[in-house]
């Protein structure tokens, strides 16, 4: 009979506390899950920081933490959302997004297959957006201390000299352009979570918008402001823009694109699509003289096919967004009060 010591199990199917402890299991997690998918020259250094050359102009820096539930949803998962969201936050500042960090908080017991799928999506999203994930961190918490997985991504981008895109730049007369139909992400999450089944599943619009924005800025270099209408939707974003620039915004209800299934779900749930989150849409404020070029450039891009001029900036009612109804009346578009739904991104 051969004696053998009970060796520790190294090949796990779920996340263990030790995966975050910095020892052999941590190394295994890096070697098995992260490195094969995210590999690049910066990560391979295995240093405590990524070091890169800065480009001329200004640096844009942003961070966001993703706690969406469910972690897998129609049209995406928490991984691509975490990459696209941070890429978009850089791009709407006029920056060219370049480098991302990724911090993971994992709940003990998370299937490693789920983590692999999520990291795979992050790699794919980063590849599509043309950015690199250059540093990262993983912590594991006990079961019940977080909900499966939370991801923080921070991002660095470079703003070419001379470019000035800011929420304070709106001027009366500017056109407001929306890149496509609203409410897809929020409604995808909501209908999945509430188990509502519609004839066709609503897909999240999670997408990186940097290439759309690059095309746009090429065609209309004097864009005044850009924002991605995520939480709080178009209503919140336009209210913020109006208030930051002390101008009014007037919208035309009839031309705001909303998908039929999103409209249906919104009617059913009593939710205004204007307040529902998007993860692949951008609002552009551009001088009227460049509006046609901006619109054409957006419509020529796969993420802007349904772009439309939805309103204009006015000097009346500063700080307020007003909707013109198809009946000829008007109403205030309010800043949404709170979250319709927690943990949407």
């Amino acid at each position, binding site marked *: 009979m051969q004696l053998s010591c009970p060796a520790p199990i190294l090949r796990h199917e779920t996340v263990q506390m030790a995966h975050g402890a910095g020892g052999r299991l941590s190394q295994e997690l890096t070697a098995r899950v992260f490195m094969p998918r995210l590999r690049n020259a910066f990560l391979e250094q295995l240093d405590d920081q990524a070091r890169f050359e800065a480009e001329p102009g200004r640096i844009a820096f942003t961070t966001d933490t993703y706690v969406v539930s469910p972690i897998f949803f129609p049209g995406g998962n928490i991984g691509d959302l975490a990459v696209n969201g941070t890429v978009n936050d850089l791009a709407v500042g006029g920056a060219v997004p370049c480098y991302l960090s990724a911090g993971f908080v994992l709940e003990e017991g998370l299937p490693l297959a789920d983590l692999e799928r999520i990291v795979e999506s992050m790699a794919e999203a980063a590849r599509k957006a043309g950015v690199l994930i250059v540093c990262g961190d993983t912590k594991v918490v006990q079961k019940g201390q977080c909900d499966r997985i939370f991801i923080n991504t921070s991002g660095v981008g470079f703003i070419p000299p001379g470019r000035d895109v800011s929420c304070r730049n709106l001027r009366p007369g500017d056109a407001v352009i929306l890149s496509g139909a609203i409410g897809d992400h929020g409604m995808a999450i909501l209908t999945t979570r*509430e188990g509502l089944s519609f004839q066709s599943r609503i897909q999240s619009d999670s997408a990186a918008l940097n290439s759309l924005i690059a095309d746009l800025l090429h065609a209309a270099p004097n864009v005044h402001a850009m924002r991605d209408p995520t939480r709080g939707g178009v209503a919140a974003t336009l209210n913020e823009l109006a208030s930051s620039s002390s101008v009014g915004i007037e919208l035309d209800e009839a031309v705001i694109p909303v998908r*039929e299934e999103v*409209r*249906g779900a919104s*009617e059913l749930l*009593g939710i205004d699509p204007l307040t529902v989150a998007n993860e692949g849409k951008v609002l552009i404020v551009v001088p009227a003289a460049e509006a046609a070029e901006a619109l054409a450039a957006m419509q020529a891009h796969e993420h802007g096919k349904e772009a439309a001029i939805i309103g204009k900036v006015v000097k009346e*009612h500063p700080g*307020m967004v*007003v909707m013109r*109804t*198809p*009946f*000829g*009346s*008007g*109403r*205030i578009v*309010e800043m949404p*009060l709170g979250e319709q739904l927690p943990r949407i991104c």
Partner: protein
Amino acid sequence: MKYIDEFRDPARARALLDRIRQIARREWTIMEICGGQTHSIMRNGIDQLLPPNVRLVHGPGCPVCVTPLETIERALAIAAMPNVILTSFGDMLRVPGSQKDLFMARSEGADVRIVFSPLEALQIARDNPDKEVVFLAVGFETTAPANAMAVRQAAREGLPNFSELVSQVMVPPAMRAILSSPGNRVQGFLAAGHVCAIMGYEEYEPVAAEFGVPVVPAGFEPVDLLDGILKVVEMLEEGRSGVVNAYGRVVSREGNPEARRVMQEVFEVADRPWRGIGVIPASGLVLRREYDIFDAEKRFDVSHIAPQESPLCKSGEVLQGHLKPSDCPAFGRECTPQTPLGATMVSSEGACAAYYRYHRKPL
């Protein structure tokens, strides 16, 4: 979207508005009863489009708004008890009690959950046999059948851990109270389409006859509302009273017999306090004696809780059509959706919330 777009058609809306302008010769005050209609009117700016001699005032038909403070306080007391899951429609969570709302109770550790239907609460009770699951059953005749069905189902299944905190109210007694009040200025009604879908419109015939007013069941889309307003104005101009149905695709004279049956089986009529208005005789529904064991008020012994209202809040006058929300001294000052003094500023169907949301400043 079918059944929606045709009732939002600007051309049809314009034609109805033109007709209203043509026939309205005198000054008329019409009350839309339902908060859902109030919101649609404000959202679509229908009040701005009507001729100035046709005025809309907003009725008490917001279930969240008229739920008395004592029900909120009782819900808070129950939610704070150990081993309780309190379930409710989302709107109720922000309605202020005297000190706090259910959201604040939740942040203090109470298990308060939003459901879309009482049957969901029933499922939570099945899934959590070691917890007491209480559903905050508020609403008009629209929610009563489903709330009744949940209790009947719990009785059939012998679910010992489910109960309802009931605050059900009914429209016709409120209409009588408004029409009989000394300051009344309402001359005609748009009846609430969804309530009529359940109850039919026959129960409005005696009210219309007794007070000599037109009552027109109407829907919620702009064309529905304008059609209803046109019918009321026609009747007023011609000096006619009675009930004329403007929501034929949903409302019949008899309503939904099955829904009415389950309501009657589980609930009985009782006097009921309305927030801001006071007790209206025979205006509410309570659980019948056979269903006593599902009555959360009794199960948790909270019926002694009876707090006082803020004196600043004039929601009672708003709910009876005496006061426009924007004419209340606290409107937009002490009282906003972030700091509501009364439920009319909270609920998605509340008149004050609708004014604040869509028209807090002249456009």
